[in-house]
């Protein structure tokens, strides 16, 4: 049986299996069709109906269930996540599993299209070491992302001494809804 205890391991293995057969286009289709529109449709329904309140409900439940070390900050205009210990990437790092070249892209791979559908856009960075941050605003809000510590205060993951160790490099997404809209 395929279980959920090591889900992130076979999920990541699946990325490579798909990419070997259908290239990046198939992997992007997988994240959108299978994860966004099928597996995580409850997230989509919640956020479409309730906006930022729905984000609080969804990520409050799912990150707690996965055992993440994280903080969220919400105002009427922005929802922010600071991920200090990603349960998913952490599992892969601890178990030395790296079949796919950029596992972290999967999040924006399904969350990006989901939020686009609900009228939101994303500022996001991940450091490939289990830390990342997200700021989600409506796509009509031109506000830039907050400065480090400006919104999440001491919970801001960018204030960690190990946030930017230089290797591997940080990936940056600005007002993005797609994994290939990467600045760096």
């Amino acid at each position, binding site marked *: 049986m395929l*279980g*959920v*205890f090591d889900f992130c391991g*076979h999920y990541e293995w699946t990325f490579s299996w798909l990419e070997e057969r259908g290239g990046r286009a198939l992997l992007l289709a*997988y994240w959108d*069709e299978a*994860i966004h529109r099928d597996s995580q449709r409850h997230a989509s329904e919640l956020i479409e109906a309730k906006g930022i309140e729905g984000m609080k409900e969804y990520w409050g439940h799912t990150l707690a269930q*996965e055992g993440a070390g994280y903080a969220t900050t919400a105002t009427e205009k922005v929802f922010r996540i600071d991920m200090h210990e990603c*349960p998913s990437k952490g599992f892969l790092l*601890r178990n030395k599993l790296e079949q796919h070249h950029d596992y972290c892209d999967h999040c924006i791979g399904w969350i990006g299209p989901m939020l686009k559908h609900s009228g939101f856009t994303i500022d996001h960075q991940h450091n490939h070491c289990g830390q990342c941050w997200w700021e989600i605003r409506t796509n009509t809000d031109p506000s830039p992302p907050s400065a480090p510590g400006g919104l999440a205060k001491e919970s801001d993951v960018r204030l960690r001494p190990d946030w930017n160790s230089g290797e591997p490099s940080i990936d940056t997404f600005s007002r993005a809804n797609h994994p290939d809209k990467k600045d760096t």
Partner: protein
Amino acid sequence: MKSPTPLPYTDTKAVGAADFYFAINATFRFILKKFGEEGLRQYWGGLGSRYFAPVSAAWRARGLEGVAEYWKAFFAAEPDAQVEVQPGTDCVTLNVKVCPAIHHLRKGQREILPCFCQHCYFISEAMAQPANLTVRVEGGNGSCRQIFLRRDPNLPAQDLARIKEATC
């Protein structure tokens, strides 16, 4: 030296997050849509022979005792699983009273892929083969029996009709 856990990959939490069963079901559906039945079986076979290669190696080294240890640890880490693992001299039997995946998919009112339960046969068979073992599955759709035993050319092949279609 005996490993502290027979599971090949470990985590900081004791039990997996049940909502990931939604993703497993959705992944099977996606692959079936893109590659058909044969493609889905190849995916399952690849998981068994490559992703689970460390389990096969442990089974090869420890035989049926290793099989029983693995499944006991496996189901202890799956949310809401009710499974009895019966070790024997010639086989190991898993009496799956409550399949955690079907249980959670139903609870979440998800459309379950009809051939969902076949993944247990195809993945386990690919895991068992390098250890000179084989598996037979009977039942499904929430509860089933899985028997792991030594490979024998006289043993009848798995009859897929004995694995029930999954329903919501």
